[in-house]
């Protein structure tokens, strides 16, 4: 377990070094905003935003599919006894 923990720390340290190398060491001679553009920071932001966007779209799809089918919120309920059963379960 100690080895596993150290290995995990090691590759996180290595990744941190790579981030710093790309964003700080390479453009260290430039002083303007373009030269100091943080590619890794922007890449992390784009990666997480894309993930959130796709997951969000799937969540929207599933929710409205549920609203229009199983829940029957618009056309009447498919299983009238289900809300009481769910409430009982949560209690």
């Amino acid at each position: 377990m100690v080895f596993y923990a150290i290995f995990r720390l090691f590759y996180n340290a290595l990744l941190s070094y790579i981030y710093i190398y790309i964003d700080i060491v390479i453009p260290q001679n430039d002083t303007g905003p373009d030269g100091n553009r943080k590619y890794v920071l922007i890449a992390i932001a784009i990666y997480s935003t894309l993930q959130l966007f796709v997951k969000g779209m799937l969540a929207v799809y599933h929710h409205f599919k549920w609203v229009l089918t199983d829940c029957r919120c618009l056309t009447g309920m498919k299983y009238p006894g289900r809300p009481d059963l769910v409430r009982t379960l949560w209690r």
Partner: protein
Amino acid sequence: MKQRRRWINSSLFAFLYVYKNYYFHAMESKHNFFDKYVKLNLSMFLALLSLLSSYITPSIYFYVLLQTITQIDITSNSAAIAAKIVAIAYVMVYLVAVAGGLTGAVWTKHAYLVSAVLSCFTFAMLALVLYNLVFVYLGFTTTGIDFNSFTQVIILIMIIVNIGLYYFLILMHLPTHPTFVWRLFVDQFSYLTFQGAYSQTMVSHAFCNVDDVSWGTKGSTGSHGGKKYET
């Protein structure tokens, strides 16, 4: 801590099992073509990405903390020094969490201290990211938003997508689950406060004890009924 360790590790292994076998089970199911070949694969890919992200979270957290402080004033030496001190403090706290996770039961009684420090880091990070977005990247008090700048436009889009989509996802449940929506808003502060504990302390404790196959505290408290025991 013990329960959370069990949940995190069992979720990890459950996901690995599902990831290995889902395709065969999906083929035998009655799902339609879109569900089987598109939506399920996309969902599993996203789950895999989330798993990979959880492995590299400490490095991303460290780097964002370092850069957000440095960027407050890129020409200032004091900002650079403060960034290094705070980043090293974060590393030390994380190492304490890992070392504590390896030592096991004794440390878990004091884990809340590490979690409290990590909560402070969470709020500090939120404030730093907000400051960086508004004043450094979008230049609200200096240059303003330049719609010809790729960086500024993409950051603006990302802010809209992240915040807008987050609140849309919550508010779309308002007609069907108003109580849960209200609780989401009310509990937001608590969620942020405990984020340091849940996403870092407990995760590091879990992976340091991945060989522990006990059932956590299940059955060890009176509320669960039966004899008090701990395996």
